[in-house]
């Protein structure tokens, strides 16, 4: 009896939360997130929300846990404390099966592209469709060609991942990430290591896909120029906290020294150029002990 009441209470709570997040128009609500890797504190009471349908960028210096944040949202890592609500459901408290189901609605582009090396380009894009749907072979073919066409690689469908350039494999991975028309697409450093042409292609792809599929995009990057060009809102992380947030224009004119150092790429400032060390003169004079 008592259990039933508690369960009822929980479902009710969940429904209220769902309504709240739909009303507030946020797809993702992160509340008071704390995460530690070993002894190191990565996130310290972090809270942020990602509005539905937007392109939101998470920026910050290397090593601030941007990729970790994506893994936390996808449920691949568990935080020490806090809530991560996607559509009102708390990812942190989901079972393995629930997580696997949730992820059908999330597309993720990995930094390393992560294509299955034993499958052709076509089969890579077809993979999620084959596993999660019972569509006919003909329909799968049509869908895969559509997705590949969207990234401009319909002609490369018979190639193997090893035969692709870095930019091409990232585009194939993108086609695979959108195969099931997800509600949320997460991009992990999509611009890293791309030549200027591939970079331009990716920037416009991310923008176009967000509009065409009416999804929410979450972008993790430290390439300021490209990110500023497409993001609706930006969060800048440092030392486990949000140190600045707002539209690109707001952040560019921010008074905060740290935000300004990051946005304008100054080599020294609140984030020091030098790794903590003894006094230089002392170090040199001391010699080898």
């Amino acid at each position, binding site marked *: 009896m008592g259990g039933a009441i508690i369960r009822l209470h929980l479902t009710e709570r969940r429904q209220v939360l769902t309504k709240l997040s739909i009303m507030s128009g946020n797809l993702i609500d992160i509340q008071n997130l704390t995460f530690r890797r070993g002894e190191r504190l990565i996130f310290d009471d972090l809270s942020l929300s990602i509005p539905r349908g937007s392109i939101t960028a998470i920026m910050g210096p290397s090593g601030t846990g941007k990729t970790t944040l994506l893994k936390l949202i996808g449920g691949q890592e568990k935080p020490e404390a806090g809530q991560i609500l996607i559509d009102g459901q708390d990812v942190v408290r989901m079972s*393995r099966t629930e997580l696997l189901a949730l992820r059908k609605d999330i597309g993720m582009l990995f930094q*390393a592209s992560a294509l299955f090396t034993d499958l052709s380009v076509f089969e890579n894009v077809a993979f999620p469709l084959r596993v999660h749907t019972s569509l006919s072979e003909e329909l799968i073919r049509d869908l895969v060609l559509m997705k590949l066409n969207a990234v401009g690689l319909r002609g490369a469908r018979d190639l193997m991942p090893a035969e692709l350039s870095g930019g091409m494999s990232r585009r194939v991975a993108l086609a695979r990430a959108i195969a099931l028309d997800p509600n949320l697409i997460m991009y992990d450093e999509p611009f890293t290591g791309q030549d200027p042409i591939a970079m331009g292609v990716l920037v416009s792809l991310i923008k176009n896909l967000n509009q065409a599929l009416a999804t929410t995009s979450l972008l993790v990057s430290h390439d300021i120029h490209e990110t500023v060009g497409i993001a609706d809102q930006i969060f800048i992380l440092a030392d486990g906290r949000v140190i600045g947030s707002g539209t690109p224009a707001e952040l560019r004119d921010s008074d905060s020294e740290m935000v300004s150092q990051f946005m304008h790429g100054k080599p020294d400032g609140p984030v020091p150029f030098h790794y903590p060390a003894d006094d230089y003169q002392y170090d040199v004079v001391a010699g080898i002990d």
Partner: protein
Amino acid sequence: MVLFLRRIGMRAFKFLAALGRASALWWSAMRWLPRLSELNLLIRQIYNVGYLSLVIVVLSAFSIGAVLALQFYTQLARFGAQEAVGVGLALVLLRELGPVVTALLFAGRAGSALTAEIGLMKTTEQLSSMEMMGVDPLRRIVAPRIWAGIISVPILTAIFNTVAIYGGVVVAIDWLGADAGGFWSGMQDVVDWWEDLAKGMFKSLVFAILVTWVAVFQGYDSEPTAEGMAMSTTRTVVISSVLILASDFLLTLVMYGDF
């Protein structure tokens, strides 16, 4: 002294932690029987770990059978008991050498390959991306490989035994001229299907589970670096070889020991 004890303690702790992770992996992957729709994955893995190991197994089996026959023949000929070559060969192969050598070869040929494959999939985030697509890599990648090992090793052992006996026949009968009738009838009289054949095959089943388990765990648990991969593949071969030899002794003790 304290430092020494602490180091031993840390080692033991690490070992227990790894054992726990390995058991969790086994449980998550092997909880379900493979579905009918996953049959093609299984067949592909049987091809990879089983069929592709055939060359090394057949070559080793033939030469081991031939060498054994040569040794048996020269020793037995001193007592004029050349026909007993057949019996000796069959017993040694079915009870011990067949299962053990096949499993050792399998660990070197297929076990290391499994570790490298899964380790590289992990390094290139293929396992992670599969997880993010809502597909359980333990079920899709790990389970078919374990099943393939469990199915392949006993079959490879049977092939090993057959080819090795044929190697013995070529040397003892065709070359050295032992009496074929005595060779075969001796074997038929003495070899018992339960005592020799079934128990030998049971051994190979145990070895199959040990080797594939170690191999997929080492791959799944490997450090995602070049150095980590090298360590994991080496560990697969070393650990599974030691496990094969140790468990063979135990199994022999339990199954054939008479006290």
